[in-house]
């Protein structure tokens, strides 16, 4: 059943006629054409599909799109501003905190949401926060380092 839903996507308003029970992941990747959000497991185990809804990380593979109505949705495509990478993106790129790169968009958005809540995390805080994100290539060490670096870079910034 189609519902008319409106929300903002990466800062721009969108209105869709879509079955509100469908998962946000598929609507973002198909109707909205943004493929940076990845399908990894479909059950919320891996974190590859993480997006932000009102700045909180959610697993879009089991987040019904109707719950996004009236809210701000941000995907990885919305993180860099006018071509300038966010400190998290900078740190991931500079510190080689990725290999195949498939889990990276979800990792970065998961870390972003966490850093908004906890701008001065300890290493243990970071590990705890990222525990639900899987990386098969084993880039964990560099991901933790990149988040530590980005946390410093984000202080004072939004």
């Amino acid at each position, binding site marked *: 059943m189609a519902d008319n839903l409106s929300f903002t996507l990466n800062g721009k308003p969108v209105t869709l006629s879509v079955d509100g029970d469908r998962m946000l992941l598929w609507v973002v990747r198909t109707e909205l054409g943004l493929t940076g959000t990845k399908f990894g497991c479909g*059950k919320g185990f891996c974190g590859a599909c993480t997006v932000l809804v009102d700045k909180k990380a959610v697993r879009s593979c089991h987040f019904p799109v109707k719950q996004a109505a009236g809210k701000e949705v941000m995907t990885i495509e919305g993180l860099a501003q006018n071509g300038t990478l966010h400190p998290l993106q900078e740190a991931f790129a500079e510190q080689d905190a990725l290999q*195949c790169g498939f889990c990276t968009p979800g990792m970065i958005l998961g870390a972003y949401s966490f850093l908004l809540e906890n701008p001065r995390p300890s290493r243990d805080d970071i590990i705890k926060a990222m525990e639900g994100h899987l990386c098969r290539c084993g880039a964990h060490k560099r991901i933790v380092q990149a988040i530590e670096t980005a946390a410093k870079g984000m202080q004072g910034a939004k």
Partner: protein
Amino acid sequence: MSEAEYDSIAHGHESGLGPISRRDFLKYTGGGIVVFFFAEGSWAAQRGLPTDFNAFLQVGEDGRVTCFTGKIEMGQGIITSLPQMLADELDVPVDSVDIVMGDTSLCPWDGGTHGSMSTRGFGPPLRKAAAEARQVLLELAAEKLDVPLERLQTKDGVVFDQAHAEKKATYAQLTQGKKIERQLKQEPHLKDVSEFKVMGKPRARTDARQKVTGQAQFAADIRAPGMAYAAILRPPAHGAKLRNADTSAAEKMAGVQVIRDNDLIAVLHEKPDMAEAALKEVKSDFDVPEAAVDDKTIFQHLLDVATGRGRESQTKGDVDAAAKQAKLTVEKTYYNSYVAHAPTETHSAFAKIENDTVTVWASTQAPFRLQEEIARALEVSPDKVRVITPFVGGGFGGKGRCIPAVEAARLAKLAKKPVQVVYSRAEEFFYDTFRPAAIVKVKSGLDDSGKFVFWDYGVYFAGDRGAACFYDVPNLRTTSYSETKPGMEAHLFATGAWRAPSNNTNTFGRESHVDMLAAEAKIDPVEFRLKNLTDERMIRVLKAAAEKFGWTPAKRPAAAGRGFGVACGIDSGTYVTTMAEVEVNKDTGEVQPKRVVCAMDQGITVNPEGQAMQIEGCITMGLGYALTEEVHFKGGDILDVNFGSYKLPRFSWLPEIETVLVENKELTPQGGGEPAVITMGAVIANAVFDATGARLFQLPMTGERIKEAISKSV
């Protein structure tokens, strides 16, 4: 080269879209210098393909350099390191090098990306081709500048007169209007390590920006107007036969197209989740064979089906006679479970057919083999099939085949529209080519001084990569058993290469056993290994690891809940020693890795940063097969359908990781992406032994198994 030019080659060459010929390439590229070269082994000759080239590089008229290779990027980082090698020999800034990978219409035939061969096998000829191109540029400059060849030098894409530096020409100026073709035949002079400016220096990944912004495209990200997503009916178990399927309910759903073609039953929809939902409406009935084997009985099954006729890969002295002389003999059996590749990106493909030509974007490690497979399935000639490999989201040996690509091509043909097939996580587990369950039996003995007297080693169903004994043993035999009794199968489902195939199992068996011998002889395990090694490379690597780790000889096991382990191994020409510190919770049996140090001698290091990354990845990934990863199954039914029961390493497992690259400038680069994973089973088993006094004989060492081993050891 511009994208339009790529397209003009891809769509233009006369023979259609088959393996690109030299004539095709020269016709459609702009001018400049092209050097054709051949890399790797004998596969081309075996296949009756030309052996004069399987790669080329071009110095374009704009001075940019492009390398064309059938290799693919799946995280291992060759997109960054191959250009480094090229840039150094050619004397150009590394940023002026482009690399085109894994496109069957742009790149020459290639056997696939595996076996840690990209840098080891492809690197040396790539460097030679670059040196050859540099030679051509020098000759052109000699003529243009009217300067004797021997006075000329190159730097940063410029040839200049050493006597009069103002006399110079850029590569772009030299190649302008030229069309020069060279075949690499002779052995051009390669630079010495001391001359390297780019190689040996850390270089950040060139694909990082695309990957952190979501711009990097994987096969599931390809879109085209009018496309459909397919969900395919799958059997409940391997070996199951479809009795009947009723698709009528699905057919009635809005927007659903049902395709039935022999064994292939698919529902198509313009939304992937709707296709998935429609598949649930397909009623099916399968004959499922009775489950005779499961993950608990598999090892007995393997021993039952084995003929016991082995292949001896290593023999020395008289093992049977020597066995009687040994003062201390240990005989043990080691078990290793099925392990999944579980790449974060499931196998995915997108296919479209235009003007009789099939173009398929696929997550594959072997685009050219896939091209042939698709051609067979569609009954067309391979030159009507183009496979493009975008970024691959992890492979680890599991993407040698890409079944969804064949299915997408078949469906695109039948549905007359572009089709995408993306495995669900359950399909990914079901169709994975698991690392085989395997068994290692070792009987070995020492003399009074703790020196080896004999070593009798047999490996069942893992293969013999990494089985060879590198300790100094006077009487030795290494045997590989893979033959099954007539009509009997070892495995109920597909198995295949998993990062450093065979070697994880062999190194677990050998290094666990060596550790047991050391403990029985009451000698520190590092001291014991050094006492029994004559291989200088291994001695150097072991000592480097011990120094970095701060290994202190001690009586083991200390059984203090905290333990230290060591394991050594050789893979893909690379020597590895890993040391680990773990904490074991004796109540739960859970292991917390605290610190891992890995020392590696892999010859010349092209990109130290990339190499460190690969070692870290091997260590972290290796903790999975050491501690939790095993495939649960009952007959052909794969019980693991997601990451709830199949447990991958997580952030909380992360030990402190340190890597040591042991310098060896005499040796060309050896394997880098696999070797450090081989030691992880044994190093953790040995550390767990030190921590608890309990010896684990089976991987993975789950909490349950460790608890059980502890209860037996007291």
